[in-house]
């Protein structure tokens, strides 16, 4: 009984959906505020993402002529559900109770779903700008996904497990992967930036080129949910990188009582994800948008190459240093 109650609390309250959404809004606010201050603007108040969400929920939903509205309603929900599910497997206070060998692969695929959803939305919109944006979104998926997967799977290679919680455990015993695999860490950060479609990779929704890309025909609650999906992806993506490269919420030693241990882990998680957001926001502020053909060059020539080099280095280290 207590076990299933614990699971329910974990999934729905903390650190599951309720916390996830609140934290997504908080991170999204911080991201906007940091960017604004760097650009010498004032920036939004802390409740802005929440206010945006409520406002958009209340707005009229417009169905473009000839569009299957059921699919149009369903796609944002599916995308949001996918990223929220992905977050459940990522350690927040300690190892996730839902962890199983192989959850890393599931998380990676679930995090890819929003891009596919955007492509579908663009294709269904019967709008030339949305269609171009959708095609760009899926083209980009093929470019950044391979290096991102490679970079995210290299820690698993070294830790000898496909479970994120086990990878965190390995780092607790040995060393953070950011020191062992610095190239992979950089590739993963760049890949995450592309996954979240943030400058310089905001190609699918480039405002001055394709209006809002796949988002063009989204209105009301669909827009609200899709927006929330991106904000949740920001949390899930940075939490994944924290778990894979920065040792997640694990402390090098165990505190007692257990709740103190969990609290310390949670604080570590917050600090580390905030650091990731700071890096991502800085990249966003410091760059302009590149073209999709240029991204293709960079992605396959440098990112994929760097990720492969990292895999090679990891294999060599594995061979030389037989881990206990």
């Amino acid at each position, binding site marked *: 009984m207590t076990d299933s109650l614990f699971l329910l609390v974990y999934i729905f309250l903390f650190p599951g959906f309720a916390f996830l959404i609140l934290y997504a809004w908080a991170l999204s606010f911080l991201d906007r505020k940091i960017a604004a201050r*760097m*650009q*010498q*603007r004032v920036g939004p108040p802390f409740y802005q993402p929440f206010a945006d969400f409520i406002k958009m929920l209340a707005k009229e939903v417009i169905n473009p002529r000839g569009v299957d509205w059921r699919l149009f309603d369903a796609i944002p929900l599916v995308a949001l559900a996918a990223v929220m599910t992905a977050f459940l497997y990522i350690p927040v206070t300690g190892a996730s109770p839902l962890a199983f060998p192989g959850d890393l692969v599931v998380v990676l695929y679930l995090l890819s779903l929003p891009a596919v959803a955007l492509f579908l939305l663009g294709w269904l919109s019967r709008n*030339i*700008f949305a269609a*171009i944006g959708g*095609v760009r979104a899926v083209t980009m998926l093929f470019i950044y996904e391979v290096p991102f997967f490679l970079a995210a799977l290299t820690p698993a290679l070294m830790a000898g497990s496909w479970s994120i919680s086990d990878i965190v455990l390995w780092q607790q015993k040995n060393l953070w992967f950011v020191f062992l695999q610095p190239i992979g860490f950089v590739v993963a950060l760049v890949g995450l930036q592309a996954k979240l479609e943030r*400058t*310089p990779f*905001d*190609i699918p929704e*480039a*405002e*001055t*080129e394709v*209006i809002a890309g796949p988002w063009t025909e989204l209105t009301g609650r669909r827009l609200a949910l899709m927006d929330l999906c991106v904000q949740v992806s920001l949390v899930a993506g940075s939490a994944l990188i924290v778990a894979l490269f920065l040792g997640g919420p694990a402390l090098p030693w165990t505190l007692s009582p257990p709740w103190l241990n969990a609290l310390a882990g949670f604080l570590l998680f917050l600090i580390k994800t905030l650091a990731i957001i700071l890096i991502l926001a800085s990249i966003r*502020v*410091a*760059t*302009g*948008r*590149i*073209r*999709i*053909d*240029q991204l293709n060059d960079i992605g396959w020539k440098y990112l994929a190459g760097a990720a492969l080099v990292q895999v090679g280095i990891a294999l060599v280290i594995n061979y030389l240093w037989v881990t206990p």
Partner: protein
Amino acid sequence: MAEVVIPIGPQHPALKEPVNFRIIADGEKIVRLELDLSYNHRGIEKAAEQRNFIRVLPLLERVCGICSHSHATNFAKGVEEIMALEIPPRARYIRTIIAELERMHSHLLWLGVAAHEIGFNTLFMWTWRDREAVQDTLEEMSGNRVHYGMNEIGGVRRDLTPAQIQAALSRLPVLEERVRQYRQMVESEETLLMRFRGVGRLSKEEVLKYGAVGPTARASGVDYDVRKDDPYLAYAEVPFNVVTDTSGDVYGRTRVRVGELGESLKIVRYCLEHIPEGPIRADAPHTAPEGETLSRYEAPRGELAHFIRTNGTDKAERIDIRTPTLANWTSVAVCLVNQNLADIPVIVAAIDPCLSCTSRLTVVNRNDGTAGVITFDELRRRRDRQWDRQELR
């Protein structure tokens, strides 16, 4: 993907004013395009012919919200030429100071817009922040941020006090520092170079063939600047360089504009420090003798030409305004072909288009190619017919 038609405009986030491109694209490559201009014909030339010279100046200032001083000065200059009126040196210097401040705020605005077109919003925010310093100076001098209302036939309407000159001089060092910073940014920021280099290239021959003007021409190595080639106001006495570049692409146009920012700062500093004493206006007659002139002026976007014909009254018989954007449009249509879809906004923005200033109307009979005028009654009849058709639908 097969060939698709992408309508850009008249309403589009990349365009600040109405214009329509029908882009025929193959995937992400532009195959050809059709340009549809003149959504915003305002009849300013006709209205200017109905007013006397005193009332024309405020009207012409409203041709453009950014180069307002250019239009008023150019018209005043032309009419003074017909009247054979020499304006006092202090007035010439004040006009030059306002003109160069205007160029600075226009180029800073452009730099921000160009950065925004490639999604580089930080540069956008920073340049517009610094533009405020220029606008503050203009406001202190003229009382206005946009339409300065400084000109009058025969001189200027407001004098500069020593305090205003001091305040303007005190702002210059900050701006000089910032312009240095922008030059460095433009030449070294990686994403900016990726998006600007080799994009929208125009050779020197093409520029001459299509008659491009201003920074667009100078970026392709055409050393043409009315301020140097046909000096007016105080430009003959002020030392400055014409900034040119050889690359001919958007990157070159950016470098030319940033270079011109530096030159404008130098001109403003020189004029403020060397402004002669004396009256600010000469006594101008109310009427101009019969005559015509082509008054030329280097506006921020390029050569601005006003053709003015007078007939001995206090009104101009004909005013024809050729804005630099009109001269640059053809070159845009040429350099867009074979470019990437993503580069449309930045190529279009690179000429710094000012669309509503450019809107003109000529009625051409499609069958025999004759051009003419239609009367107001005929215009109303056509409108009614169109409305009838729409109701039937």
